C-alpha cells in the first residue's frame, strides 16, 4: 500500500487545534487535580472521622470505575444539573478535574506521610497552627518529594485525554478521526497520531526520570 503522508501534512492546522485542546485539558485537569487532590489528602489524613471517611469514599469510588464511565456519566449528568447544554469539550474539563483529583490525592497523601514526625512536631513546637504547619513545613516538602510521581501522573493524564473522543470532543485523536472520515486515510492518520503521542510521552517520561535521580541526590 502507498503512504499518503501529504494528506496528514495538509491537515496539520486541524490537528494542531485538536492538540491544543488536549494540552489545555491536561493543564487544567492537572492544576485543579493537584489543588483538589491536596485538600482531599489532608481530609483523608484528618483526625476527624467523618471527614477522612468521606475523602476515602470519594477516592475509592473514582478509582474503582473506568475513566470512560466517568466521562459518559458527567457528559450526561452535567446538562441535567446545570440546565444548560455545555458540550463535550467543556464538560471534559470538569470530569477530568474531578476524576484526576482522586489519583493525585493518593500520590500527595503518600508524600505527606513520608514527612518525618519530627518535622511535624517541630512546626507545632514553633507555635504554628495546623494550616501554617501544612503551608510552611509539610506541603512544600511533600510536594517536592512527590514531584516525579505527580509528573508521571500528568503524563498518564495527557494520554487519557484521548478518551474524550468517545463523547465527540475534538482533541488530537478526535480531530484525526474527523479527517479519516473525509479523507479515508486511517493508516497514515492514526500512525501519525500514535507517533505524536509517543514522542511527547516518551521524552517527558525520560526527563521525569532524570529529575527523579537529581531530587534523590539532593535529599
Amino acid at each position, binding site marked *: *500500500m502507498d503512504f499518503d503522508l501529504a494528506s496528514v501534512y495538509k491537515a496539520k492546522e486541524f490537528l494542531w487545534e485538536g492538540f491544543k485542546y488536549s494540552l489545555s485539558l491536561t493543564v487544567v485537569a492537572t492544576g485543579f487535580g493537584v489543588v483538589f487532590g491536596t485538600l482531599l489528602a489532608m481530609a483523608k489524613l484528618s483526625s476527624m472521622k467523618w471527614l477522612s471517611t468521606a475523602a476515602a469514599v470519594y477516592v475509592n*469510588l473514582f478509582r*474503582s*470505575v*473506568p*475513566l*470512560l*464511565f466517568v466521562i*459518559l*456519566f458527567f457528559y*450526561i*449528568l452535567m446538562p*441535567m*444539573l446545570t*440546565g444548560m447544554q455545555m458540550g463535550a469539550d467543556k464538560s471534559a474539563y470538569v470530569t477530568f478535574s474531578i476524576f484526576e483529583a482522586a489519583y493525585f490525592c493518593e500520590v500527595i497523601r503518600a508524600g505527606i506521610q513520608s514527612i518525618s514526625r519530627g518535622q511535624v512536631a517541630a512546626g507545632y513546637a514553633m507555635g504554628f497552627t495546623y494550616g501554617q504547619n501544612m503551608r510552611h513545613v509539610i506541603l512544600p516538602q511533600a510536594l517536592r518529594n512527590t514531584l516525579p510521581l505527580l509528573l508521571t501522573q500528568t503524563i498518564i493524564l495527557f*494520554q*487519557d485525554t*484521548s*478518551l474524550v*473522543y*468517545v463523547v465527540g470532543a475534538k482533541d488530537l*485523536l478526535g480531530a484525526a*478521526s474527523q479527517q*479519516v472520515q473525509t479523507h479515508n486515510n*486511517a*493508516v497514515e492518520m*492514526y*500512525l501519525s*497520531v*500514535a507517533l505524536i*503521542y*509517543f514522542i511527547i*510521552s*516518551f521524552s517527558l*517520561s525520560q526527563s521525569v526520570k532524570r529529575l527523579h535521580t537529581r531530587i534523590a541526590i539532593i535529599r
Partner: protein
Amino acid sequence: MGQYNWNWGIVLEKVAGTDEYYWHWLASGLGWTVVTALSAWMIALFIGIFVGTARTVPNKWLAGFARAYVELFRNVPLLVQLFVWYFVIPDLLPEKMGLWIKRDLRDLVTFTNYLPEFIFAVLGLGLFTSARVAEQVRTGIMALSRGQKSAGLAVGFTLGQTYRYVLLPMAFRIVIPPLTSEFMNIFKNSSVALAIGLVELTFQMKQITGEYAPSNPIEVMAVVGGIYLCIAFSVNRLMAWIERKVRVPGYIAEGGK
C-alpha cells in the same frame, strides 16, 4: 432537574419493540467485559513476565529490546493503540490476510457477531497491559537483594536456573500487590474497547442512555457503576486471598496491613 421522573425499575423493563429486557443487555455487556479482561490478562501476564525478566538479564541486546518494547506500549494511549490494531494493522498485512480479516473473520464462528472486535480488543489491551506488568516484574526482581542472585550462582545454578528457582519465585510474591492494581485496571480499561465496537458493559450503558432510555440515564448509570464497584471489590479480595496463600512465612513481613 425538577421534572426528572425517577424510575429505578428501568433496567428490569422491556426494550421497546423487542423481546429483550435492559438487564439482558447489561448482563451480556458484563460478560464481554469479563471475558475480554480475562483473555487480555492471560496475554499480559505471559508476555509481561518474559519481557520484565528480560529487562534484568546481563545480555545488553535482550535487555535493550525488552526496554524498547515497554517504552513503545507505555507511551501511546490505549485508545490510539486499539485504533492502530483495528483500523491500521489489517491494511499493513499482506493483502490476502488483510482481506480475510475484513471479510471472513466475522463469520468464522456462529455464536457471536463480534469476533474481530473481540480479538483486536484482547490483543490491544493485552499488549498494552503487558508493558505495565513487565515494569512491575522488573521492579520485583530488582527489589531482591543482590545476594540472592550470587547465592544461586554460587551453589552451581546456571543463570537460567537461578532465575527459575531463586529469583522469580520470590519476585512473584513481591509483585502481587502491584499486579492486583494492574488486574483491576484491565477490567476498567476494557471499557475503552467500546470505541472499536466491542459491546461490553460501558458500550451497553452508552447505548441504553443514549438511544433507548434517554429519560432515565441516572438509574442505568448507577447500576453500571455498581457493577464496576463489585468487579473491583471481587478482584481485590481474590488477589488478597492469593497473596495469603503463597506467602513465604517470615520472608515478607506482615507489614502493609
